[in-house]
């Protein structure tokens, strides 16, 4: 009996552990995001992340970059980010890059570009204290 309950309990425990870890990472992500004015979660091999970094550097912003592939909990963080971004994201597409400005989630590259073109990115950066001009 004790033996029979184990697998189910183990499975359940595992799920809870995963979920906790995710939540941990979620917390961690949020915590990390609030630490700087501009935080980018990226991957060193991702070229779109490279473009994102270039964009901010070109504007004169100095973002804090967290490379998920160099973090031991990177996978979980990636999942957490995926959840943050919402269910509409295609799971096969890359999650990163994800940008937080002033602790608040902005989103992926398309969101950032949309904000930039509509002229709301710069005020947002100024508000967060990332731009001084």
């Amino acid at each position, binding site marked *: 009996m004790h033996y029979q309950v184990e697998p189910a309990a183990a499975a359940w425990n595992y799920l809870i552990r995963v979920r906790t870890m995710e939540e941990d990472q979620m917390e961690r992500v949020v915590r990390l995001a609030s630490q700087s004015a501009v935080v980018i979660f990226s991957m060193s091999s991702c*070229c779109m992340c490279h*473009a994102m970094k*270039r964009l901010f550097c070109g*504007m004169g912003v100095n973002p804090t970059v967290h490379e998920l592939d160099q973090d031991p909990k990177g996978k979980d963080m990636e999942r957490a980010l995926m959840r943050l971004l919402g269910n509409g994201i295609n799971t096969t597409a890359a999650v990163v890059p994800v940008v937080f400005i002033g602790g608040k989630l902005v989103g992926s*590259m*398309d969101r950032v*570009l949309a904000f930039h*073109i509509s*002229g709301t990115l710069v005020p947002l950066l100024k508000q967060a204290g990332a731009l001084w001009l």
Partner: protein
Amino acid sequence: MQSFNPTESESTSPLYSHSSFIHRGNDANPNPTRFSDLQHSFRQHDAVDLSSSSVFGAKSNNMAVVASNLQCGTFNTNLGGAEFGSTVVGCVETESQHMYQRGNCSATMPMGNQYVEKWADDSQHTEDTCTDIDTDDKNQCFSTVSWGNGVGDGALVVVDSQDQSKTKVKPEDQKTVRRLAQNREAARKSRLRKKAYVQQLESSRVRLAQLEQELQRARQQQGVLIANGLTAERGHSVVGNGALAFDMDYVRWVDEHQRLINDLRSAINSRMGDNELYVLVDGVMAHYDELFRLKSIGAKADVFHILSGMWKTPAERCFIWLGGFRSSELLKIVRNQLEPLTEEQLMGIYNLQQSSQQAEDALSQGMEALQQSLSDTLSTSSQGSSGSGNVAEYMGQMAIALGKLATLESFLHQADLLRQQTLQQMRRILTTFQAARALLVINDYVSRLRALNSLWLACPREY
């Protein structure tokens, strides 16, 4: 035999009348009445010139000069100086009288009158003197006689006028003849010009027909190429289909776009109200959205085809950026042609141009990084030891490369989003009328690029 020395007079008085007078004098019959002829012709010439107003002022001068010449000692005559002077004066007087008779205005009028009086007084005297003179001075005598005769009554005038009318006809004839000749010349020239123009038109027509033919041929060639692309790649028929399908959709889209733009243009020209214009402008903007939708479908089917820009004309392809037009370039074109803009609008457009430029740069750098990493991946796969391990490594590298290639589509997607959002933001900044004009300007630019392309294809280049 006294003879009037023409050269002296000629040197001092270059007027036409004078020279022809001289000429006449030379050609005149060599009879002793030459002097009288001279005298007559002198008078006639002067009279003729009297009738031409242009030499009017000079006329009196001429007369005075001639008179002085006559006076000046070219004559050695036995006539008394007084008589001679009087005859000369008479001559002058006659001329003045003629002037007077003709009713021409002259500054020398009063002088003429004076001379006339004197002449009237001296007439008899001259005549008498003349008859007394020896035959040595026959010429002069005769001339004086003629003068005298002329002087005696108003017949001089009549005679002279008769002579004058006779000689007047010839120069008049000459003028008419000259005029006719000029007319003929002008007519001939204009005929030649007309002929040349017609020839030019004909050759241009031929050239136009040639150009149209070549254009047709080039268009057919392009169509053939697409068809060839499809048939030659049986194995990649799916891919070919995707490209071909997009090409056909794009051609349809361009035609529809042109129709919408023409409607917009006629709306602007007919000064349509803002409300209707708004609808038309929104229609064009929605049509642009349709293009981006088509492109995303095409990119999913064949990303390389979209990226390569093979669906654009070659000239447009020159300016391609990440599978489409460059937003900042478009804004530059629009900005120059959109005066007047308010301060706010100018700032808005400038900022938009700035941000789209930054976004383009970022995406371009991302693309460069992608290319670099792709080439790194492919180059590392070529290294490695021989053996079965190599194949696995090879497959592994290929998988990574495939993964990297997948990001191509996302770059293309981002680029199209950028283009779409730039257009929408531009629409938001401008008024309806300005936006309509901006769309027309963009269309003009693209049309010209396409026309340039056609011309380039049509022009035979012989190197």
